[in-house]
Each structure stands twice: as C-alpha cells, then as structure tokens.
C-alpha cells in the first residue's frame, strides 16, 4: 500500500521508512549505515531517530517475535459494552494491563453494541479466559455485556508497506 504523507520533513521520513521497513541491517554501527543512506551525518541521523521516537512516529526500534513460535497460539479479541461516561478512565485501565496488546474505543452500530476492544494473547485457552475474567472484574458494573472473539485462522497478514519513490501516489 502507499500512504499519503504531508508533514514538512516527510521526504526524509519517507526515505527512512522505505530504507528500514523490511528491517534494520544487522551491523555493528547501524547509524553509520543509515547516515550514509540518508546523506546525513551520524549525529543528525541519531537526532532524527530520537525526535521521531519522542513524537511517537517511531514506537521503538525493536524485534518482533513470531508469537506462535514462542507458544502464544491463542488470541482473543475481547469486546465490551462500556458506559460512555466511564470510558476514559476504564479504557486507560484496561489498556494498562500487561496482557493486553492493543486497546481501542470504536463506535457502536445498530447491530454491534461493543465500544471497547482489548486484544489478549496467551499460551492456552484457559489463560486467555482468565484474562477475560480479570478484565470483567476491572470493568465491574460499568460494563453490560461482553464477548471474546477467538481467532481460529490467519487469512492474510501482509502488514502495512510504503511503496518506494516510484509509487504513482503522491508521497
């Protein structure tokens, strides 16, 4: 996919993304490599990374494990019908649980009543059921009903990819 970018420093950021989205080379001095690719000096490269990380455009420079290989074969999307006035407090509380990987507020719909989503991962079905119980306890009577949608098959997983500069989309 290609993504439209419009902030001023973005040509540089876009080049950084295209250079590293498949991964950072495993070099003893990765910043020297990156600096050379970007045409900056090492200090400016490191400053750029620090700034992007401080702004949240880069969450971190990190390893992503294959969680299936580490034994985390169970994942459940727990969904909760939470009283709107309690959402700011409870969303933050649920998101802060160490076993919750993603936590969002999403809209209710005519045929969908749940407004809080929390993804949990575990090594057994008991484990994720226990997590769900714990979330239910934390939400208390601010939550009406809930469900847990267990994933049983990955149908597609390509992730987000920015096209290189030859893209037809404006970047």
């Amino acid at each position: 996919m290609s993504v439209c970018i419009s902030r001023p420093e973005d040509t540089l950021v876009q080049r950084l993304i295209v250079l590293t989205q498949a991964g950072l080379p495993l070099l003893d001095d990765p910043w020297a490599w990156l600096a050379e690719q970007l045409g900056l000096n090492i200090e400016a490269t490191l400053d750029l990374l620090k700034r992007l990380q401080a702004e949240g455009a880069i969450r971190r420079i990190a390893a992503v494990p294959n969680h299936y290989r580490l034994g985390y074969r169970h994942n459940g999307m727990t969904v909760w019908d939470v009283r709107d006035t309690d959402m700011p407090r409870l969303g933050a509380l649920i998101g802060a649980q160490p076993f919750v990987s993603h936590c969002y507020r999403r809209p209710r719909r005519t045929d969908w009543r749940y407004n809080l989503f929390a993804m949990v991962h575990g090594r057994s079905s008991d484990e994720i059921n226990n997590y769900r119980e714990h979330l239910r306890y934390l939400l208390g009577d601010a939550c009406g009903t809930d469900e847990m949608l267990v994933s049983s098959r990955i149908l597609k997983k390509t992730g987000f990819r920015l096209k290189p500069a030859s893209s037809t989309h404006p970047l």
Partner: protein
Amino acid sequence: MDDLDRRLINRLQLGLPLVRHPWRELAAELETSSTELLGRLHTLLNDGMLTRFGPMFDIERLGGAFTLAALAVPEERFEEVAEQLHGLPEVAHNYRREHAWNMWFVLACATEQDLTETLHHIETLTGLPLLNLPKEETYHVGLYFPA
C-alpha cells in the same frame, strides 16, 4: 534457544537504545559481546523465531486512512470471500474469528476517500453488509511476548 537467546528476545522487544553504539550498550547489559548478539539476532531472524527487527513506525501518524471491518460470511461462501479479500491490496490483515461476524480485517488506504470507496467496493464484491469500526481512541498499543 538458550537463556541468552531468551534474554535477547525480551530485551529487543523493548527497543534498541538510541545511543551512539547501541550494540555495545546492549552487550554490556546482557554481559556478552556485540558480535555475539548480532550473530544470535541473525540466527533468530533466519529461524523465524523473530519476524522482524527494525523501527516500528506508527504508520497511522504519518498519514493514510485505516479501519477495522467485519463481515458475517455464510459458511459455504467463506473460502470464496477470503480469496476476494486476499486479492485486495488495501486489506492488510484478515482473521477468521469464531462469531457470527466471522471475518475481521484491517483496511489501510492512502486517503479517507480511498477508504470509503474500498468499503463500498467490498460490499459490492461480496454482496454482504459490512461492519465498519474505525478506532476513535487508542488506549494502548504494545506487543510484548516474554520468551
């Protein structure tokens, strides 16, 4: 995998320090050498224990339009609809989940207009009503899987 592999996987999920010589700092922390760490990281990536090592961009902050959507697909049409979605470049992830809404996918588009068009396109293509649930607030994003 030995103890050092586990410690390396756990430490690297938290992020490489943004210092002049990050591998030296990490080597000191894990009481080994940077050559050893890089060698092990190479093996863990090759073996598929790690899927990626690098900057984790919050691509949504950099522009684009995203949503989580779901379809309730009749069982006899499930494979056909999965194939239809697989062919769309806008579909970044797609999971089967055990629920009446049994197909859940993330759409990533360049603009809001592209996203709206893609949502209509999927409804037309599949003939199924779509549940569109864009995020309104993020409370937490941060995968951490202790090895």
